[in-house]
């Protein structure tokens, strides 16, 4: 297992290097540079030239690339062109926010998805199953940003907001710093509700479909009938015997959902004014803020690689038949 993990990590190195190199090339192939984004009729051309020199953009491309690689390997990502702060600080501010949003969404996706899938499988072809299927398919087809806007409109109607005043933008209230510790925690949770739903609901619907399928496959097998015949309660049969096997294919979804989640944050963070990586990356691309785009792309890439690895390892944990590396 350790050797397997090590090999996978080693394999990730050329992959990530390829990702950043490709990003670098694509960024510089795109027309315009950070100073054209500053473009403004009131700035004289010599000032633009000076900006370009100060940012090191007047040097040949290979030099810029090697320079970036060096700063990257020394763990210093350089300075953001548009935010005037070290890239590490810029990302350090945004990354935890996105991880929080994605992690809570991931929990929602799997907990809600699995629960709904199990209920549907157990009550196959019931009215409840049909209703949940229609609901899941509908949600699965709804784009996250639209769902987000609808949620905002919904909680903003006077009737709803009179009893459920959920925040619709930002991570904390404006008086957050004047709250007590419990108040602050509650404030954060309240701010998470809508973005998490908008980000995760469609994926949860997808997981529910998978879970239903996997569960149905398992639930008709002989050992389940045996378990029932032994006189075990239905609850025990479903949640202990059937679930363990049905979870196997679902766990492998984890690796697939991570990139989807990170992609989704770009839109969700704009809709809900969430100061995270998605919005940062989007704005940095528009501003041609090369150092931030490179670092952010690398991080997203690394997170996806890590996510895939974790899901593969988890697979081994939940399925004793899977062994990595030892050649047994």
């Amino acid at each position, binding site marked *: 297992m350790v050797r397997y993990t090590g090999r996978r990590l080693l394999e990730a190195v050329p992959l990530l290097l390829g990702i950043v190199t490709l990003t670098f090339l694509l960024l510089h192939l*795109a*027309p*315009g*540079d*950070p100073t*054209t*984004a*500053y*473009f*403004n*009729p*009131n*700035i*004289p*051309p010599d*000032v*633009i030239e*000076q*900006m370009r020199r*100060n940012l090191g953009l007047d040097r040949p491309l290979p030099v810029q690339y090697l320079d970036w690689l060096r700063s990257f390997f020394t763990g210093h990502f350089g*300075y953001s062109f*548009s*935010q*005037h*702060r*070290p890239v590490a600080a*810029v990302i350090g*501010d*945004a990354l935890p926010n996105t991880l929080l949003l994605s992690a809570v969404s991931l929990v929602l996706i799997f907990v809600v998805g699995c629960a709904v899938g199990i209920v549907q499988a157990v009550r196959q072809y019931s009215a409840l199953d049909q209703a949940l299927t229609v609901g899941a398919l509908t949600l699965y087809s709804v784009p996250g940003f639209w769902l987000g*806007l609808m949620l*905002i*409109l919904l909680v*903003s109607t006077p009737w709803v*907001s009179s009893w459920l005043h959920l*925040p*619709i*933008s*930002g*991570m904390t209230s*404006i*008086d957050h*710093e004047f709250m007590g510790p419990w108040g602050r925690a509650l404030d954060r949770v309240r701010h998470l509700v809508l973005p998490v739903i908008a980000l995760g609901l469609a994926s949860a619907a997808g997981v529910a479909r998978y879970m239903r399928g996997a569960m149905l496959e398992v639930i008709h097998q002989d050992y389940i009938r045996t378990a029932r015949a032994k006189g075990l309660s239905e609850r025990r049969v479903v949640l202990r015997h059937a679930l363990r096997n049905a979870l196997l294919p679902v766990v492998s979804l984890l690796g697939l959902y991570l990139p989807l989640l990170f992609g989704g944050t770009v839109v969700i963070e*704009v*809709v*809900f*004014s969430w*100061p*995270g990586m998605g*919005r*940062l990356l989007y*704005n940095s691309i*528009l*501003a*041609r803020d090369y150092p931030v785009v490179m670092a952010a792309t690398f991080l997203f890439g690394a997170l996806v690689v890590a996510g895939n690895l974790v899901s593969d390892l988890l697979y081994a944990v939940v399925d004793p038949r899977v062994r990595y590396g030892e050649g047994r």
Partner: protein
Amino acid sequence: MSGPRRTTVLARPAAVLAAALALGAAACGGGERAGRGAGGAAVPDSARRGGTVVVGIRAEIPGVDPLVPPPDYMGAQVERYVLFMPLVQLGPDFRFQPWLARSWDVSEDSTRVVFHLRDDVTWSDGKPVTAADVAYTYRKATDPDIPFPNRAYFERWDSVQVVDAHTVRFRIRPYSQFLFGWTQVPILPEHVLGDVPDSALATHPFGTSAPVGDGPFRFVSHEQGDRWVFEANPDFPEELGGRPYVDRLALRVIPDGSTALAELARGDLDVLMNVPPEGVGRVRSDSSLRLLSFPSSSYAFVAWNTRRPLFSDVRVRRALTMAMDRKAMLDAVRHGLGSLATGPLGPWHWAYDSAWRPLPFDPDSARALLAAAGWRDTDGDGVLDRDGRPFRFTLLVPDVRVRRDMAVMMQADLRKVGVDLRPATRDFAALAGAIQDASRPYDAFLLSWNEDLVIDDRDYWSCGPDEGPLQFSGWCDRALDAVMDSIPGAMDRSLKRRLLRTYAETVERAQPYTFLFDEDRAAGVRRGLEGVSMDVRGELRTARSWWVRPGAR
């Protein structure tokens, strides 16, 4: 355009400065309190204090160091009106008023200016604001190693000398708007930044997480991509209005327009800057809100590349303008927030002539003009042609919904007079790169931008030997050059007004651009927030005298 970049011969510089000085002196009496009383005389000063005002803005303000680019519309206002103090303030009608400088003297030959600073202003760390700070700011703003965007403001300023703690003397080469730069660039603290090398200035925490200011508000916190929070400065000079009424001023970034409108309607925002046009109706119909709109210096236009044969004929350019239903466009994409443009000078400017009328929407005349220029549909395909070449061109369009919609409307309008417009969208950096490219690789492009408050448009239209990156249309006129060259030096207002109008009318006649519309900016303001007034000088200009009705806190 900011400040003159080419040498200008001035007729009587001394008179210019004397006039400016007289204006300054006239405005010296601190009429601030009286101004603040308007709109709520029944509520005593003491009852106006308190409360937090939450302002929604649409884009992050990356930093508040005025020396560090890029210049940002809201960021510049925070610097000028919230966190720091410029020497001089831009009064109504753009007259100069004392601010950090209590007064100023100009020598007989107009080559020396002496500013007398207030002695009751302190930085938020307790240190007094002195002449050394002014000298520092000037040196950095003119330092060639620092890409200060508005360096041109001080191009005719030659040297600085600190006379005593509150007196600073400059040597200048005279021109009429010499004080303008000092209304735009706030004074910075030398004791904080003096030891920072030029190369480290852009990334110094001063601009992003630890500003030390002397303005009506003090810095509290900045969370990247989320908010800036300021609190009232209790030590702000009484004579200038004293401590602001509100305890706190928070600027929250809400990039999505519909989310921002929902926040305003729910009451979680007190002010929403730059209400998206499609939300104007909603704000107007909400009894808990009011809409403040004002003409901004921003205008939308199509630039024609007159170097290309397609657009070299003025009749063709006028025909293209007249073929476009600009009113329909204004109503559709701006929901009426703006007025049809009558040339390069908008209604926000004091020299604007309210008798100006836009070119009419008149497709028949447009057809006639095109025919006169030799364009006919000889092959019957619905597209005009001349010498076997169809009238077909590509319009570069910023990849923003509003601009895309406008391009589609133009395409339909031009189609009716036999012109085939092909829109091509580009993201902003790509578009900016293409239109500034020396090879001018475009037929035409659609854009809108903010004009500088001091009109000096020589960078767009000058016939000079070396073409600058901003000469998008390539059109110029020798006679107009002479007019534009004399604008910065024009000493009295009536002469300046005449010159500006001649300039605007000449450009409008030649239509190197199709001037589409002058854009109004609109802010949604919650009822209960009083003392708010906004104009082209900026939405936050009066923030220090905003107050919240006690019942609305």
